[in-house]
């Protein structure tokens, strides 16, 4: 558990292996028909590509692999958009990075 870190406001590199923070839960809101992230005191409503990125944030896939997978699925999701999204979520402590 101590081998993880969150990096507020720091960019992510291609070799990082992101995963959802322990206290964050991803689910689907039927009422709103949107994927969501649940945190203490907060709900983040996601779009479909955001949810697709986070489904791959399992601590095993690297950022580079996630970018490649997303690129294959959605032609319109460029590399730096994935990084920006993950950086933003890391700053909000939704995502953390497994070391190594």
């Amino acid at each position, binding site marked *: 558990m101590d081998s993880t870190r969150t990096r507020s406001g720091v960019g992510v590199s291609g070799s990082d292996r992101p995963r959802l923070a322990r206290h964050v839960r991803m689910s689907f809101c039927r009422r709103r028909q949107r994927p969501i992230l649940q945190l*203490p005191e907060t709900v983040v409503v996601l779009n479909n590509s955001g949810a697709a990125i986070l489904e791959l944030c399992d601590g095993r896939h690297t950022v580079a692999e996630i970018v490649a997978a997303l690129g294959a699925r959605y032609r319109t999701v460029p590399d730096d958009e994935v990084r920006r999204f993950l950086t933003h979520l890391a700053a909000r402590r939704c995502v953390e990075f497994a070391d190594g």
Partner: protein
Amino acid sequence: MDSPFGLLAELTYRCPLACGYCSNPLNLADYTDELTTDEWRRVLVEASELGVLQCHLSGGEPLLRRDLVQIVAQAAEIGLYTNLVTSAIGLSRSTAERLRAAGLDHVQISIQAEEPANSDRLAGIPSFQRKIEAMELVKELGWPLTMNVVLHRHNIDRVAGVIELAERVGADRLELANTQYYGWAWRNREALLPSRAQLEAAEVVVRAARQRLRECMEVIYVVPDYYSRYPKPCMGGWAARQLTVTPNGDVLPCPAAQSLPLPRASVRVDPLARIWAESPVLTAFRGTDWMPDPCRSCDRRELDFGGCRCQAFQLTGDAARTDPVCHLSPDHHLVARAVAAANPGAPTEDLPLIPRPHRVRASRRTPTAAPPRR
């Protein structure tokens, strides 16, 4: 009209503590006819169908409800994210384990100050040590932990100690919340309001801690709105994102709104969806149409929603006025006067705090009668 994201389920206003900054209503006796387990189950299902995703189980002290585990289990079963907001008095190992098994997601534990004597004095009972043990238990059982401290004149000078304590117990989040003046806190406002010098010193400490701890703890600082230029965006707008159900089943946009002269809406009488959509207590200040000037023509009207309706009512007697915290409010002198009284030159240093009672005897009022209005 949007769907609400969060339900604040105020399960009971009974509490083992007697904090003078409590935001519970003064008329505690009107809330003793508490919803049953089955009524809460129905409320949770109706809330979920309405779009609620998060359920904050609060009070009073929610652990005083003997059916808390059943209520948590129901919330978890229908997929709500559950957050227990507690003093931790009554959080024994066996209760904690049963709550964990029932699916409770997150625990927030309050502390009154960073060391036993001051904390116990403010709480009204010896409680500090039990709270620390409960925080360690929460971490041991693998829950994310938020430590919450309400800041005021009597503890804000020691905020550095609070932060150290949060680090020591391994809190994931630390909520440093300046007192909001509702209920018992409103009654104790003069005794609680810190001076500008106290706030400025505390904010230096908080900023430094946020920077230092950014990789291991989220530090939330709830600003003291009496010292702000603009009002807080109260509840993200009236009945926009949150709703409250009180111990006796009244539905409100926020707990403080019980003080407003609006007709009651109760889950015992109507379905939650209809109340959310149609009940005057939820529609009265929704959106921006109700706004007077200066809000009506203000660029910030969609940022702060005119501030807090309950604060406007408390200070001016009219809930539809601009929150007097705003420096543009024609009533701002009411806040400025309170602030002046809390700063050097004023004779109101160190007034005693009136403790809130732990519990009150059941009201003789019939459950269908309207609560008194101020």
